[in-house]
């Protein structure tokens, strides 16, 4: 009897799927061979644990379903003020149709515009994907210009260090944790610069080329812990056609730049399920910039664009941040960092100008040096 047959026999024996004859035969075998007896006991124990596991898993699933249904039905409000949110829901149901029409008209116009763009500005074939990090010389030049302008403020880039790459980043935890792309950090050290031009020293805590995510920790006495994040990190995936916007530092004069677009596919380049395809004009330097939806939720992280089609960019899905945090928690060296992601809904304004104003203090230009 080989292992598989034995395994099958034990399972049948325990579930009572044996004929009387088989049963007595097996019983005798079990008595005669302690190894088999041991295997039966072990398997019984395993099946018991499996049952508990299965029951609990299914029951948790049921709980989640029930909970989400009730939540969607407006049974509870996540915020303390219940009246306002139920009013919003009322308004939403009332204007659902109008909004849907508006959204589809908007989508059509956007599609038309990008089709026109494609038609009039065809780009040259080459590498199909471009990382959005800035080139070396440009930053170097920028650095010189800046030090020229601000003579009294000394740069925090160590002397003799050479800037090698740059991009954007944003806070995910007000303790000073900044997310950016791994490909932005080509150097050994990094500094981050806020939208006011203030520089902060940062250490590279984590960098993963596969997911193209990296985590920096601002370690600078000048850094004052910000108030709670004005946005939520979205765990669920986002809807096609959702309006999105980004804020980053693509330019060399270190001015924050706003870009607007929409989510155009649930998967990224070549069907990559870790990323979204978004329609947005993406310039080098946008790498690592946050992608927000209208509901004050972070839904992705800009990472690359397609060379072939203007306006097509890819953003890493925000749920990858939860994976990243879990990796940190599971690692002996990083588990004490205690990085917390904001999952609580942020009410805040839905007015775009107000949103930009709220968010811009949480977004940084990232520069790596050697």
């Amino acid at each position, binding site marked *: 009897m080989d292992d*598989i047959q034995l395994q*099958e026999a034990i399972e049948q024996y325990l579930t009572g799927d044996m004929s009387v004859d088989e049963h007595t035969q097996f019983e005798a075998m079990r008595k005669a061979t302690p190894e088999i007896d041991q295997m039966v006991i072990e398997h019984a124990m395993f099946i018991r*644990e*499996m049952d508990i596991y299965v029951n609990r898993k299914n*029951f948790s699933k049921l*709980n989640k379903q*029930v909970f989400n249904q*009730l939540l969607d039905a407006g049974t509870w409000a996540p915020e303390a003020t219940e009246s306002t949110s139920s009013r919003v829901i009322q308004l939403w149901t009332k204007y659902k149709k109008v909004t849907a029409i508006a959204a589809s008209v908007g989508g059509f116009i956007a599609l038309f515009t990008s089709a026109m763009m494609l038609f009039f500005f065809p780009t040259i074939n080459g590498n199909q994907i471009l990382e959005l990090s800035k080139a070396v010389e440009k930053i170097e030049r920028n650095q010189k210009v800046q030090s020229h302008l601000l003579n009294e403020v000394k740069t925090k880039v160590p002397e003799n260090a050479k800037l090698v790459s740059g991009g954007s980043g944003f806070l995910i935890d007000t303790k000073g944790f900044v997310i950016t792309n791994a490909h932005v950090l080509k150097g050994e050290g990094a500094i981050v610069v806020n939208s006011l031009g203030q520089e902060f020293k940062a250490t590279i805590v984590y960098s993963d080329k596969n997911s193209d995510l990296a985590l920096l920790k601002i370690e600078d006495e000048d850094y004052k812990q910000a108030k709670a994040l004005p946005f939520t990190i979205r765990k669920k995936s986002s809807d096609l056609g959702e309006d999105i916007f980004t804020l980053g530092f693509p330019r060399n004069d270190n001015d924050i730049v706003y870009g607007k677009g929409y989510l155009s596919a649930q998967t990224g380049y070549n069907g990559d399920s870790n990323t979204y395809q978004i329609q947005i004009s993406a310039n080098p330097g946008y790498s690592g910039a946050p992608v927000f939806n209208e509901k004050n939720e972070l839904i992705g992280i800009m990472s690359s664009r397609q060379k072939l089609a203007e306006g097509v960019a890819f953003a890493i899905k925000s749920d990858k941040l939860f994976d990243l945090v879990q990796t940190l928690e599971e690692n002996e060296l990083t588990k004490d960092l205690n990085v917390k992601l904001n999952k*609580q809904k942020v009410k805040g304004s839905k007015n775009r100008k107000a949103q930009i104003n709220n968010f811009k203090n949480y977004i940084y230009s990232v520069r790596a040096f050697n």
Partner: protein
Amino acid sequence: MKAELNEQALLKGLAQNDSKAVETLYKSHFSMIQHFVTNNNGSFDDARDIFQEAMITLYEKVQLEHFTLSCQIKTYLFSICKNLWLKRLQQMGKYSAPLSSQEETISVEEDLDQFEKKDAAFAIMDRALNSLGEPCKSLLEGYYLNKKGMQELASQFGYTNADNAKNQKYKCLMRLKKLFFAQYNIGE
């Protein structure tokens, strides 16, 4: 008397995975826990997680053969939640003053011990399943979790017949058991 009967019916429904019973329990008791957790350093999501754990504790309790609940469901759920939340706060190093609440509580230490023991085994099984890789993970989940038959699994995974699928299932099962028992303390 009527209220008591209702509670019994609810518990019975809960034991049978009846979604109506689960819904009723959420509707009647979740806001109490939401209130309690958010008033004691927690978020809405924390309240959701804690309440689900309390629901699981109750669910696993009603599965027991000689099951009795010596108090109202409300009191039971609250006592579990309070204990769990207290622990959570201590783990986060946030706990300072006694938790504020006016609800009555009962002692639930024994049930919580049970819950945590099962939780540990659950985590080991979860890890073992997740480190199996494909197609083993989906095959075993299909068989044990979704209770699919061998024939159905054979066609889903492209095996020529149910016997082939069964062989594959046993191979996967043996690997899973190895992974599971490597971490599970049999002596306990």
